[in-house]
């Protein structure tokens, strides 16, 4: 039977000082994905190999990893698309727990800081919403929280800033673009949540397994909204005049 | 689109392409160079410049 070689990152930070790649041989099946190979190792060779997976259908976003240096979902990456030897590492932007498992809990802390949906004042309930108004926000609601975009984002991975990262930027955008939402989060996003640190290099958009246009449809529109209230001198003047006249 | 050129060589190609054309132009002002050579070098520079594109 044909076999493939897979190098899996092994490390328990409590015991080891440095991680190492361990080589395993796995029999190839037709249509095999990387998760099948890693699970084969986990089930048949070393049951203590730490690994997260749930649905195996690219719906839950648990099995994120760096496969041959590129963040991908293990369940969606077919082995026949890769070179002979496969290297699997955990998503390194997050603190390692063990082997392929990292601690992604700070994402929930960030989400706590984003104001939740609050209906516009005086909106009649149940809401009447036009179908043309749901499509933009719904694109971001496809997010499966695999955090591959957070992993690939150099601002999160290599630099210590207050930027919340692409996943959370689209969360903010999905709330802001909700037609019945009564809060404007773009000042906060541009301020405390550090959107200015994004330099739109679009890696997040490249790795998104759901094909969400993170940069084009969420981050850039949010940046433009920040321009509206902060950098556009004419709009600022107009606002000041309007406020001045209404004060009289 | 599939990228054939490794990302780290894109800017060098872009730079060399444009710079070739510029330097040829400047050189032509001060030194006598046959026009055929100028034409060939500029075309080469242009091709290098285009090959650095990412789209």
């Amino acid at each position, binding site marked *: 039977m044909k076999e493939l070689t897979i190098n899996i990152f092994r490390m328990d930070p409590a015991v080891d000082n440095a991680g190492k790649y361990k080589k395993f041989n796995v029999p190839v099946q037709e249509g095999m994905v990387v998760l099948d190979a890693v699970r084969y190792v986990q089930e048949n060779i070393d049951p203590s190999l730490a690994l997260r997976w749930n649905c195996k259908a690219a719906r839950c976003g648990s099995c994120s990893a760096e496969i041959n*240096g*590129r963040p991908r979902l293990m369940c969606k990456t077919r082995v026949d698309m890769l070179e002979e030897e496969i290297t699997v590492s955990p998503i390194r932007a997050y603190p390692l727990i063990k082997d392929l498992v990292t601690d992604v809990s700070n994402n929930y802390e960030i989400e706590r800081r984003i104001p939740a949906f609050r209906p516009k004042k005086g909106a009649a309930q149940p809401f*009447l*919403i*036009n179908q*043309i*108004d749901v499509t933009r926000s719904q694109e971001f609601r496809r997010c499966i929280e695999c955090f591959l975009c957070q992993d*690939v984002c*150099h*601002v999160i991975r*290599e*630099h210590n*800033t207050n*930027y919340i990262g692409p996943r959370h930027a689209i969360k903010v955008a999905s709330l802001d673009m*909700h*037609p019945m*939402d009564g809060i404007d989060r773009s000042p906060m996003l541009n301020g405390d949540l550090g959107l*200015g*640190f*994004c*330099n*739109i*290099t*679009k*890696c997040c958009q*490249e*790795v998104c397994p759901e094909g969400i*246009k993170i940069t*084009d449809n969420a981050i*850039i*529109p949010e*940046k*433009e*909204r*920040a*321009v*509206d209230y*902060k*950098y*556009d001198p004419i709009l600022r003047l107009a606002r000041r005049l309007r406020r001045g006249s209404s004060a009289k | 689109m599939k990228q054939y050129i*490794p*990302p*780290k060589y*894109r*800017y060098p190609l*872009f*730079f060399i392409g*444009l*710079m070739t054309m*510029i330097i040829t*132009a*400047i050189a032509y*002002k001060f030194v006598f160079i046959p*026009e055929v050579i100028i*034409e060939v070098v500029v075309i080469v520079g*242009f091709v290098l*410049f285009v090959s650095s*594109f*990412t*789209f």
Partner: protein
Amino acid sequence: MAIKTLLNSMIPSELLEPNWRLLSFIVLLISGIGVLMLYPMSEFHGYVDPFYAPTVLVVPIAGLFRLTCYAYRKDYHRHVFNHPNACGINIRGDSMTRDYSGETKFFRVENLHRYFLYAGILILPFFYYDFYISLIYSGSFVLRLGSLLLLLNAVALTLWAASCHALRHLIGGRTDCYGCAFAGSQRKSLFNWQSILNGHHEFFAWFSLLTIIFVDLYLRGLAAGMPIDLNLSKLL
């Protein structure tokens, strides 16, 4: 001291780092402008060089439009500043030891993109005018290959400007509830249509740069006496 903090908050480390890519890029910009000055070529046989439409003085404006464009921002943050050079984890050229300020300090000027867009839109008609001029320069209507290239350049520039993210925001990016707004569904379809163009913004950005340089070289070639023009009217 106060000045130092001010400078610190204004000047990003990206500009201070010893970075051959940045230095060479600055050299490229300066020498490029220098060459345009060195060989002024405003008109040849009815063809107006796109760099000189309507005057070479608008080149800095067009340049700033390009430098603040979201498509080029991606490219120079990647390829000039290496922040990061590529998405691959091992080949990205960014590191934890490098300081980074993104678009927070000096690069906040990129937020003025929409003003350069307004200026760019004002300049656009001149390219079409130059195409028209090239058709009628001999007194009667003549269609030459060069005219088509001028048209191609004008169209490429138009597509690039029309697919701009700032324009997208003005058209409808800022609107969350079209159902509540005047002529909502029409505006939403305009927005959707522009969004399709916007999806190809990077392509248009680079393609228009390619055509403008190509047309410039082509016209200079003509001026130098290269036999590369065709009278298409005669062929037909």
